[in-house]
């Protein structure tokens, strides 16, 4: 490759072979947008974790009703201006109940982010296990697991969620259940990606070298393959998290999501959309929070992808592991000069 044309991608060229957490962070830091996004995500996580502290600071909690702050005769619209924003209620109060919106928003972050992150972890875990097993197992195991993956890709998540959420006893905590349901149903795409990537990695010489060292398959999968899957998986996960937030919201819309009084952004959005005209801030707050989160995660995802391996990772958006047949899978050789 001529150095002229890779010049703009100099950091990327480096990345293709390089690794190590330190390099990763260094490369991530060089991207301003990604750094800001990472900061926002960190802030959001912090807000979610510190929700009790923040609400204590405000002097409110997410469940106490304030009937005096709403106009019962007008459907319960907040009486104060701007949706009842005041020193006591930083972001106003919820229509119909007078519950504090700031408190509900930050507690909602706990549920929404918690569900989304954990569901993603489950999706990634199942996807990894199935994908790696399919790629490393024999022809029949591969066939079987690939078909199962197809089934899970074809099952409509919403519908199965509706059913599954109804089956499980109600004593089971809802956020955990929603997490499990999302995580255990929609892992198909990630399994496909992992399978494709594992097949690619499996053909790499260092895996062959590890076999020659005398290691067993399990150890090779753990030491040699899994680290190589990190880049695509992390990249895809950063796309999955916001999707999962939306799914949680949709499940709330269909009436099977997280239950009151536990606030979640999805639930707030669901309750708030009809208030768009009467109490706009009620809708805009969770929508804004969701938007910022998704934006930050998407930008961070791009940054992570770039930092980990821009060329390989950008193929992942396909999500179907159609890497096969793309001729330039071959690893760059030292003959290509790198300036």
């Amino acid at each position, binding site marked *: 490759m001529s150095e002229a*044309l890779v010049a703009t991608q100099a950091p990327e060229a480096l990345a293709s072979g390089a690794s190590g957490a330190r390099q990763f962070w260094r490369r991530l830091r060089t991207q301003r947008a990604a750094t800001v996004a990472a900061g926002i995500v960190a802030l959001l996580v912090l807000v979610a974790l510190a929700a009790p502290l923040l609400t204590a600071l405000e002097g409110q909690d997410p469940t106490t009703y304030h009937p005096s702050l709403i106009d019962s005769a007008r459907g319960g619209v907040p009486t104060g201006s701007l949706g009842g924003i005041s020193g006591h209620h930083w972001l106003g109060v919820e229509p119909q109940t007078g519950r504090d919106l700031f408190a509900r928003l930050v507690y909602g972050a706990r549920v929404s982010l918690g569900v989304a992150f954990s569901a993603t972890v489950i999706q990634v875990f199942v996807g990894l296990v199935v994908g790696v097993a399919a790629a490393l197992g024999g022809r029949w195991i591969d066939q079987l697991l690939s*078909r199962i993956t197809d089934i899970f890709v*074809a099952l409509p998540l919403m*519908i199965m969620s509706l059913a599954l959420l109804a089956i499980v006893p109600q004593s089971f905590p809802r956020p955990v259940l929603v997490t499990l349901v999302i995580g255990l149903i929609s892992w198909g795409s990630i399994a496909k990606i992992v399978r494709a990537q594992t097949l690619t990695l499996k053909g790499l010489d260092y895996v062959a070298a590890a076999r020659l060292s005398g290691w067993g398959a399990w150890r090779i999968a753990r030491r040699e393959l899994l680290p190589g899957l990190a880049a695509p998986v992390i990249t895809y996960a950063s796309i999955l998290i916001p999707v999962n937030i939306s799914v949680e*919201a949709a499940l709330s819309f269909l009436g099977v999501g997280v239950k009151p009084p536990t606030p979640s952004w999805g639930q707030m959005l669901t309750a708030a959309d009809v208030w768009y005209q009467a109490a706009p801030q009620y809708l805009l707050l969770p929508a804004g929070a969701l938007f910022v989160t998704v934006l930050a995660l*998407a930008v961070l995802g791009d940054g992570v992808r770039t930092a980990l391996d821009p060329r390989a990772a*950008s193929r992942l958006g396909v*999500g179907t592991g159609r890497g096969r047949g793309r001729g330039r899978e071959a690893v760059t050789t030292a003959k290509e000069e790198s300036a």
Partner: protein
Amino acid sequence: MNGFGGFLLRRTIGTLATLLAISVIVYVVFYVTPGNVAQITCGPRCSPEQVHQVAQQLHLDDPLYVRYWHFLQGLVVGQDYSTGTSVEHCSAPCLGLSYQTDQQVLSIILTRLPVSLSLVTGAMVLWLVLGVGTGVLSVWRRGRLTERVLTGLTLAGWATPVFVIGLVLMIVVCGELQLLPFPQYVKFTDDPEQWAWNLLLPWFSLALIESAAFARMTRSSMLETLAEDHIRTFRAYGVGERSIVGRHALRGALAPVIALNANNFGSAVGGAVLTETLFGLPGLGQELVHAVSVVDLPVVVGVVLVVGFFVVLANAVADVLYAVADRRVVLT
């Protein structure tokens, strides 16, 4: 073409196996779903005796495997059923009768399928146009304000649940600005113009969400293609940027976009559930949600199978298109 014939055969068998597996899963899941089907069908104030009669009527007392066997039988040879006054035949492939309405599931599906297909295909055209267009524009204007604004807009579409977008659009466009009628499904065969006019808003709501993924996909594939060696070749031969972006880079993004489209077809069907519910379109999604709520197993199985069939079909079509788009791919 022997290769293509073999591909079709393998795919057909795979599809049938997948659908069979899905039907088993749905049967089992809904079998353990709470909700006394006979009581729901009979009515809340039915006496235990009546409930028992209804259960017999619907064969709800049979073991699960027997019911599933009847389902398979119906698929292959059809089944007879009584309306009380006469005996009717539900010819194969018979997906059974709705517990709630006693209608043939297949006819329920066939009346609703055009609505869902209208919604999803129209939305698909829109999201491809919006998504790919946005992607191309943001590559063409990369690094400039246009790109950032476009990226922000698509992400906003992506981040907002469809029911929020749909409702706000409807309130603003139909209620306040009165630019469009409140959507009502008009059959394409009745009045194509009204059909499109009424579906415009649902299409947009659904497309806005999906198009973000396409914009991102298009953008990243094009950027990836732009980093490839053959782009350098054309630059080195004096080919202009417009042709490089519009011809070579876009062509490189085509295959991944096709693949993504197949993948998203499934999620769009999921999104269609919400869209149909919100806009009151009498499609499969709405029927399904309703059937789930009243544990109408035959309808649920039927709709899930049909939806699953379309998802699997979309994937197979995508594989073919992918192979057409990228001749190096061998169909397996």
